[in-house]
């Protein structure tokens, strides 16, 4: 008899330990609040793009984002890969248009909060980023001279209302650009410098309009945010805001022992920086050194912050001026993705290496040696229950 009672007491104590969800420590409370969408400040102005917050530019940018004629074959819009009904990504391990890219298409919610763009950060502004796929032979595959003429014929009025008169385009080759086919490059080289510069100006403006649109794409509130709001106001979470004991355990691991929130920090759950976490190379793709490749590319980009198509003063270029140029940790380092709604967009990582969140967590537990460089991930000891709890928590961030 007494032993049964003893057992009951023990069980009660254990249950208490398990459901301590309502009794977060001060540090835990602060960590939870720091991840909540409520702490996301409005997106900072972008002085390098004077049209960044111009609603006409944003509307024009939205048109361009969905415009398939903005491509060599008239079939490729940004929205083909960044699908509006799919968190602006495509569910594929590698983006596909004219050809297959070597990396996973990135979602766009909250993209304007970044300092660096692409998995390797090879662009330093949203507007400079938008120019890259337009001339990438695997994506839109066009040339800037071709795009300028397309705008003149299809969107002259809208363009000019925002950016002022288009330059004189008479006699321009149908296609010409520094990244085109050899004849298109030759045609570009043959153009006088002021003319090339005028075309570059139009091209940059297309990027600035698209960026103005992308700045309006924001993450949505999730169950976790409703839970966090309740916790920080000290009231009991109601309805779907009440996380299950497993989800709470997962949250505790995320901000505690599993140390996920060191890199996945802040309301977007990313530090916006680059880390080698030992993710294996994408099968069938050429070697990918990540940030180590991205640094020289962004430094060489004529549309970077220190280039002549920036608006405003160069003091907005801190990230580029103080860029880490060579450090061993850049090798195979990729940009930390936001985890908001990540559960709803497998496959995961820069090459879609993992098909499920369970595989992701298993990867962090094993923390394998990377193919190249040094991994920052350290092996993690999690019980079976903790493993599923971490996955359960990730799902509270939206699917």
């Amino acid at each position, binding site marked *: 008899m*007494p032993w049964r*009672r*003893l057992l009951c*007491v*023990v069980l009660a*104590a*254990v249950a*208490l*330990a398990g459901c*301590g969800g309502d009794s977060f*420590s001060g*540090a835990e409370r602060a960590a939870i609040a*720091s991840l909540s969408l409520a702490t996301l400040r409005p997106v900072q102005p972008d002085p390098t793009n004077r049209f960044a917050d111009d609603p006409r530019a944003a509307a024009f940018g939205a048109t361009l984002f969905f415009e398939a004629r903005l491509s060599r074959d008239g079939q490729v819009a940004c929205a083909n890969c960044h699908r509006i009904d799919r968190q602006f990504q495509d569910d594929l391990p590698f983006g596909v248009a004219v050809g297959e890219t070597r990396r996973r298409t990135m979602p766009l919610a909250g993209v304007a909060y970044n300092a660096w763009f692409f998995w390797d950060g090879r662009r330093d502004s949203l507007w400079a980023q938008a120019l890259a796929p337009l001339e990438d032979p695997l994506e839109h595959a066009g040339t800037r001279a071709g795009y300028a003429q397309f705008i003149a014929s299809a969107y002259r009025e809208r363009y000019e209302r925002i950016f002022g008169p288009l330059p004189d385009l008479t006699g321009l080759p149908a296609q010409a650009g520094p990244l085109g086919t050899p004849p298109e490059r030759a045609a570009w080289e043959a153009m006088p410098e002021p003319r090339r510069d005028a075309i570059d100006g139009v091209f940059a403006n297309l990027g600035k309009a698209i960026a103005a649109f992308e700045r309006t794409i924001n993450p949505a509130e999730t169950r976790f945010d409703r839970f966090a709001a309740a916790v920080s106001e000290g009231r009991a979470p109601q309805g779907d805001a009440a996380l299950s004991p497993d989800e709470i355990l997962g949250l505790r691991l995320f901000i*505690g*022992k599993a140390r996920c929130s*060191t*890199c996945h*920090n*802040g309301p977007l759950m990313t*530090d*916006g*920086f680059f*880390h080698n976490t030992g993710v294996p190379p994408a099968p069938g793709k050429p070697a990918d050194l990540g940030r180590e490749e991205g640094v020289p590319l962004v430094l060489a980009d004529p549309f970077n912050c220190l280039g002549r198509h920036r608006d405003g003063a160069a003091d907005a270029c*801190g*990230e580029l*001026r*103080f*860029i*880490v*140029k060579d*450090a061993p*940790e850049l090798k195979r380092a990729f940009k930390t993705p936001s985890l908001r709604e990540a559960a709803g967009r497998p496959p995961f990582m820069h090459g879609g290496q993992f098909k499920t969140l369970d595989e992701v967590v298993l990867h962090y537990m094993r923390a394998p040696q990377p193919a190249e460089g*040094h991994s*920052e991930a350290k092996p993690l000891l999690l019980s079976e229950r903790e493993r599923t709890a971490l996955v359960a928590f990730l799902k509270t961030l939206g699917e």
Partner: protein
Amino acid sequence: MRNQWRLTIGVALLVALVAIGLFASRHLSEREPEADLARSKPSAKGIFVVSIKPDGPEPSVGPIATWDLALTRPDGTPVSGAAVTVGGGMPQHNHGFPTEPRVSAAADPGRYRIEGVKFSMPGLWEMRLTISAGTDTDEALFNIRL
């Protein structure tokens, strides 16, 4: 009666154990090692006295900031014309700064500006200043907690 007592003691012991376990898992595991957070200190070999402070609000995760640096000899004489380089990062995470800060001389004697300082995550950061003035070279290590 004896059984009753045994039970009570057993229960008390168990509850205590669970409580200790809980406390340990909640609090001890989260604790980071104590760190010296002084913003002014002698350099490692005592050649300089080095002081840093943010030129603006206390550091936070995200923005790129400038820090002020003051260099003196132990007797208080300002040290001008020194060459200073910045290293460091997060020792517990084995990574460096997300930027490469640079130091330049400011107008006043012994004053410098550390530009391009950025912290990308909360936690304990190290800023290591390597200072050369004339034939003297020394280092100063600052801990900064965010």
